[in-house]
């Protein structure tokens, strides 16, 4: 082939210059690569460890006791699963703030379907379908209409909450029917003395890890966040990818709502109200870039357990609850400042 002969004479040029310097270059390049891939995670986790050590010093008797750790194994999943799903949205350079309301609205789907049919499986399905619909609405507004996601999902946060409050008439629903005890066992029971909440979270993490790292859709999530124009030119369906990421968050939020309400045996109209900060803090703490294009499920998983330990720690240490907000706010701000500084340095 004519091409082969050509490429061989083109080849001489770079190889001449590369050979003498190659030894030094390998280490520089691979070091830089390593840094780029892990710097955000390492740095943000470092910050988290510092915060955690501060707790250890402040309340050693609480933080050296294993009880606190088994406590947060059941509470952390209640936002960790959302954080895992949210990671995909953030990688596409978008945000979703509405998940707390989707948790509650999905449960409305559950209790209404249960009232009509008395069938638990159908009711679970109804709950998840509500999550899908919420995700589709968010996805449509963001990806098709092109409204900035931070603002529009703030809108749907209030809208979904409003629909839920109207449908429930602002009243709690007790979930103590004997028929649903099987569901409660599956969601909130224990398997080999491990809380099922934790196992569900692991399952969600594994599934989403595979989706993100081993499927074409996952590859497209990275491409869309990195450079949506290029992705479109190369045949990636940018809007569809974004919509699917919102649907994933919707379904996972609805499922988390179910798990939380079953744990409390009551659907409170305020379900999910206070869950805005922990998932977002976990995502950024785990090194997923606010600038899109990079992020990791493993990072979010670890990040959410650090956030969970802070959460549990603050409560067990008897510090007033509003300190958690201070810490989560701090975690988010520090993670983002670090990401910005690091990515700026990487560019120069």
């Amino acid at each position, binding site marked *: 082939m004519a091409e082969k002969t050509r490429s061989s004479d083109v080849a001489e040029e770079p190889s001449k210059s590369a050979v003498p310097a190659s030894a030094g270059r390998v280490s520089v390049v691979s070091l830089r*690569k390593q840094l780029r891939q892990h710097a955000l995670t390492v740095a943000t986790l470092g910050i988290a460890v510092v915060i955690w050590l501060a707790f250890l010093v402040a309340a050693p008797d609480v933080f050296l006791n294993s009880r606190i750790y088994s406590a947060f194994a059941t509470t952390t999943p209640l936002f960790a699963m959302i954080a895992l799903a949210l990671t995909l949205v953030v990688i596409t350079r978008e945000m979703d703030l509405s998940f707390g309301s989707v948790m509650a609205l999905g449960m409305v789907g559950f209790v209404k379907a249960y009232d009509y049919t008395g069938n638990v499986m159908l009711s679970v399905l109804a709950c998840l379908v509500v999550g899908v619909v919420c995700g589709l609405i968010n996805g449509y507004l963001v990806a098709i209409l092109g409204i900035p996601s931070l603002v529009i999902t703030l809108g749907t946060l209030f809208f979904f909450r409003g629909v839920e409050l109207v449908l429930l008439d602002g009243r709690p629903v007790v979930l103590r029917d004997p028929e649903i005890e099987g569901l409660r066992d599956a969601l909130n029971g224990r398997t080999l003395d491990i809380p099922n909440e934790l196992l569900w979270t692991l399952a969600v993490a594994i599934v989403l890890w595979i989706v993100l790292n081993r499927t074409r859709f996952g590859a497209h999530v990275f491409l869309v966040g990195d450079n949506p124009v290029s992705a479109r*030119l190369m045949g990636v369906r940018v809007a569809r990818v974004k919509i699917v990421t919102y649907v994933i968050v919707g379904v996972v939020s609805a499922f988390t709502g179910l798990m939380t309400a079953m744990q409390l045996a009551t659907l409170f109209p305020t379900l999910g109200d206070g869950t805005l900060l922990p998932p977002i803090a976990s995502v950024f703490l785990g090194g997923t870039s606010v600038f899109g294009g990079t992020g990791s499920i493993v990072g979010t998983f670890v990040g959410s357990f650090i956030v969970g330990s802070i959460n549990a720690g603050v409560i067990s240490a008897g510090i007033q609850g509003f300190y958690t907000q201070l810490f989560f706010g701090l975690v988010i701000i520090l993670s983002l400042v670090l990401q910005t500084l690091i990515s700026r340095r990487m560019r120069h």
Partner: protein
Amino acid sequence: MDESPQAEEGSAGAPPVIELRNVSKTFGDVHALSGVNFHVSQGEIVGLLGDNGSGKSTMVKLMMGVHGPDSGGEVWVDGQRVRDWSVNRARALGIETVYQERALAEQQAIWRNMYMGRELVNRFRLLDIRRMRREASGVMSGHLGFTSTAVHPDNVVETMSGGEKQGVAITRALHFHARLLLLDEPTMGLSLSETRKTLDFVGSIKEAGRSAVLVDHNIFHVYPVADRLVVLDRGRVAGEFTRAEISMEDLIDRLYTVARTGRMEE
């Protein structure tokens, strides 16, 4: 089509690789292309010239399926009209593009860029990362002679030089055995030697019996490698010449005339 293509080798009688018939493209009030007729024969290199805003890039994106033509316009490939024109359709028919903006995702690894939009999967529908890495590495050294460590398939594009990035964009287009390559300003931002390499490469497309459309501001780049030159002005084809018909000096004069008057002749 009134004139027959001037491809020099063995394409007589074969239908054009691609043909646009009466193609228009409007974006809101902007008429990017109006009633364009254009074709590329097999083994032919067509140079597409024109000022900023003449519609060159729109035409490239249209031939690649990023845009569909407005109603009334037709896209024909190998003598067959294609109605559901899209990027994936164009690719399936052997058309590839090296975009002006290179269309790379800079924070991603080279292999991810190489297979952007058509990632390889195994029988479980999961990404075949090992194969994509291996093949990316093979074509990088095979096609463009990249032997420096900067072009390891796991490296992110961001760390590469302009020429290396362009190498990835070109290799990507080549790797899928394109019959028609669309090169939109491939020399933009490249050093002299990188430009030389890229133009040599355009020549090699022809040697391999493939076709190409070369879009470039710089007529000194286009003229020597093109068989035929098409001049676009304000979304219309203002003139069309084979290289044998016109000298570079004449062509430059005419381009100035077009820019001033919108017509090839005064």
